[in-house]
C-alpha cells in the first residue's frame, strides 16, 4: 500500500465513521460550489444566447449610427442628442463603395397599431426593401414589400408574428387585412417567422412592424434616416469597408455625429457587460465557499482535539510531524472535495432540469473551478488545524484521555 493511498483510506475511514458530521460539514462547500457553478453556467448560457442572436443576424453587418455610442474603452457611452441626419445621398454613396453588398436606411418610431378593435404599441421600422435580407428575416405568411412598393410609396406593412397574433387572433389571418399606424391605413402583406430576440436593447422582431420608408411622410417628414445597415460582401472585407465608410462620412459630418460599428464590436461590448455582472455575482457566491471553509476548519479543530491520543500513538511509533499534518490535511481536502463534488452534481441536475427554459451550460472551466477551489479551500482551512495536530507534543498527546 503506498503512502497516498494510506492517507486517503485513513481519512475516508474517519469520514465514514462520522457520516452525519461529514455531510453537515461539507454542506457549506456544497452550497458554495453549487451557487458558483450555477452562476457560471447561467452566465455562459446567457452569453451563448446573445451570441446566437447576433449570429442569426450575420457577422458581416455594419451599423452606421448618428452618434458615438461605443466609448474608446469599449463600453457604451452616452450618445448625446440623437438626430436623424443621414439622407439618401449617404445611402447611394455607401452603396457605391466596393465591398458593400446592401445598404438599408432605417427610421424607428414607437407607434400604436390598431386593427379590428385591438390596439397595440409597436416599434415601427421604416426601411428599404432589403431589410429582410440584411437581418435574415423571413415571412412565414405572405411576402415582404418590394422595390416597387418603395418607389410607389405603397402603404404596406409586415408584422411580427406576436403582434399579428395579438391583433388578428392568429398570424395567418393578418395577411391582406388593414392596420392603422398613426391613423394611416396600411395593408398587411406579410407576417414574419418567429425569431425571438428583443433582449439587450435590440428590436424584438416578434412585435415589430416593418413599412417602406417612403410610405408615410408623417413617419419621415424630413426624409432623413437614423441608422444605415450595411451588409458587406464577406466577413473579410468588413474592416476595410468600415474604414471606407468612415472616410466618406467624415466629409459631411463631425467626428461625434456618426459612428460605424461592426456587429462583432457590439457583441463584444454586450458580452463584456454581462461578464462583469456575472463576475460580481460569482464573487458574491464565493462568500458561501469561505463560510463553508470556516465550517471545515471548525470541525477539523474539534477532530484534532478528539484524536489527540491517536496522534500521540502515531508519533510514538514513528510518524513525523509531516505525516500527521498530511493526515489531517487529507481529511480536510477530502471533506471539501466531497462537498464540491456533491455541489457539482446538483448543479448538473439543475442545469439539466431547466434546459428547456434556459440554455445554461456547465463547461470544463466550471468543473475545474468547483473541484480546484474546493481542494484549495480544504488545504487553506485545513492547514491550521492540521498544524496544531502536527505540533502536539508526543508525550502529552499519548497521555491525553
Amino acid at each position, binding site marked *: 500500500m503506498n*503512502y497516498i493511498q494510506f492517507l486517503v483510506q485513513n481519512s475516508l475511514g474517519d469520514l465514514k465513521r462520522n457520516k452525519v458530521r461529514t455531510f453537515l460539514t461539507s454542506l457549506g462547500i456544497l452550497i458554495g460550489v453549487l451557487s458558483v457553478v450555477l452562476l457560471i453556467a447561467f452566465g455562459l448560457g446567457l452569453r451563448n444566447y446573445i451570441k446566437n442572436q447576433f449570429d442569426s443576424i450575420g457577422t458581416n453587418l455594419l451599423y452606421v449610427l448618428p452618434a458615438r455610442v461605443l466609448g474608446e474603452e469599449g463600453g457604451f457611452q452616452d450618445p448625446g442628442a440623437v438626430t436623424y441626419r443621414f439622407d439618401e445621398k449617404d445611402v447611394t454613396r455607401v452603396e457605391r463603395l466596393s465591398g458593400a453588398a446592401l445598404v438599408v436606411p432605417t427610421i424607428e418610431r414607437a407607434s400604436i397599431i390598431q386593427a379590428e378593435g385591438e390596439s397595440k404599441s409597436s416599434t415601427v421600422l421604416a426601411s428599404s426593401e432589403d431589410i429582410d435580407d440584411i437581418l435574415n428575416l423571413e415571412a412565414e405568411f405572405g411576402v415582404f414589400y418590394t422595390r416597387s412598393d418603395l418607389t410607389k410609396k405603397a402603404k404596406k406593412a409586415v408584422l411580427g408574428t406576436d403582434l399579428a397574433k395579438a391583433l388578428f387572433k392568429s398570424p395567418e389571418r393578418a395577411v391582406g387585412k388593414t392596420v392603422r399606424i398613426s391613423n394611416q391605413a396600411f395593408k398587411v402583406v406579410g407576417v414574419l417567422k418567429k425569431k425571438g430576440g428583443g433582449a439587450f436593447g435590440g428590436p424584438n422582431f416578434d412585435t415589430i412592424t416593418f413599412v417602406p420608408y417612403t410610405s408615410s411622410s408623417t413617419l419621415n417628414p424630413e426624409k432623413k434616416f437614423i441608422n444605415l445597415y450595411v451588409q458587406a460582401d464577406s466577413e473579410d472585407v468588413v474592416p476595410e469597408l468600415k474604414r471606407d465608410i468612415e472616410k466618406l462620412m467624415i466629409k459631411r459630418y463631425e467626428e461625434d455625429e456618426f459612428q460605424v460599428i461592426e456587429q462583432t464590436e457590439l457583441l463584444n461590448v454586450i458580452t463584456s457587460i454581462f461578464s462583469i455582472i456575472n463576475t460580481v455575482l460569482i464573487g458574491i457566491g464565493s462568500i458561501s465557499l469561505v463560510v463553508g471553509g470556516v465550517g471545515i476548519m471548525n470541525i477539523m479543530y474539534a477532530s484534532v482535539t478528539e484524536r489527540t*491520543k491517536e496522534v500521540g*500513538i502515531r508519533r*510514538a511509533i*514513528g510518524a513525523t510531524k509531516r*505525516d500527521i499534518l498530511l493526515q489531517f490535511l487529507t481529511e480536510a481536502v477530502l471533506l471539501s472535495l466531497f462537498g464540491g463534488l456533491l455541489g457539482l452534481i446538483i448543479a448538473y441536475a439543475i442545469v439539466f432540469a431547466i434546459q428547456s427554459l434556459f440554455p445554461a451550460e456547465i463547461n470544463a472551466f466550471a468543473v475545474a473551478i468547483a473541484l480546484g477551489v474546493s481542494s484549495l479551500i480544504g488545504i487553506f482551512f485545513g492547514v491550521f488545524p492540521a498544524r496544531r495536530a502536527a505540533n502536539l507534543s*508526543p508525550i502529552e498527546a*499519548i497521555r491525553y484521555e
Partner: protein
Amino acid sequence: MIELQDIIKDYKVGDDTAHILRNVSLSIKEKEFIGILGTSGSGKSTLMHIIGLLDNPTSGTITINGRDVSRLSDSELSILRNEYVGFVFQSFNLINKLTVLENIMLPAVYARKKLSYDPQKKALELLTRFGIFERKDFLPNKISGGQQQRVAIARALVMNPDLILADEPTGNLDSRTGDEILKLLEELNHDLGVTVVIVTHEKDVAKRTKRQIFIKDGEVVKKY
C-alpha cells in the same frame, strides 16, 4: 548499544524548575533484559521517554550504537523511533478504529527506509506466534486486554527494532495475563535476542528481568 551520560531533565513549572532527572548515566547492552524500577514520581517515565526518543534531555548525551542522538531534530527522532524502538504501553495504546492487523502494520507505513521483508507477512507471523491469528481483523476493543497487549507487542516488533521499551506492560492486566505477557517478553529476549527494557514500579515484575536499575528522585540509586 545505548549509552546515557549525565542526563538532566528539568521542567519549568511557573517560576520554579522541577528537576525530574538529575544526572542519570546508564548503559544498555545488546540482548539485555532490563528492569527500570521506581515509584510514581521517581522520574522513571521521563527516563523511558528519553530512552525511547520521545523527549529530549535538558542536558547530557544519549548515544545509540555510537551515534549521538541527543540533539536530533524532531523528524530525525521520529524516524529513529520508527526504526530502533518498539513501545509497549500500560494502556496498550492501540488505535481503536483500525483492525488488529492494521495496527500492527502502522509503523511500517511510516517507515522511511525500504524494508527488506514484507511487513504484512511479518505481522501475520507474529500474530500466529502470539496465538491471535484469528483476531487479525478484529477491532482492538473487541478483544481481551491480554490479546490487546500481544497486538501491541507485535506492533512493537514489526519493524525489527533494536529495543522493546515496555512501560508498565502488565499494569492493566490481571496477574495471570500479566504473567503471560512477561513470559512473552522473556521469550522474545531469549529466543529472538531482542533487547527488552521494562519500566515498572512493581518489584515482582522487575525481578523477572536479568538486571534492575532503581530510580529515586530522578537519580539512579542502585544498579545490579
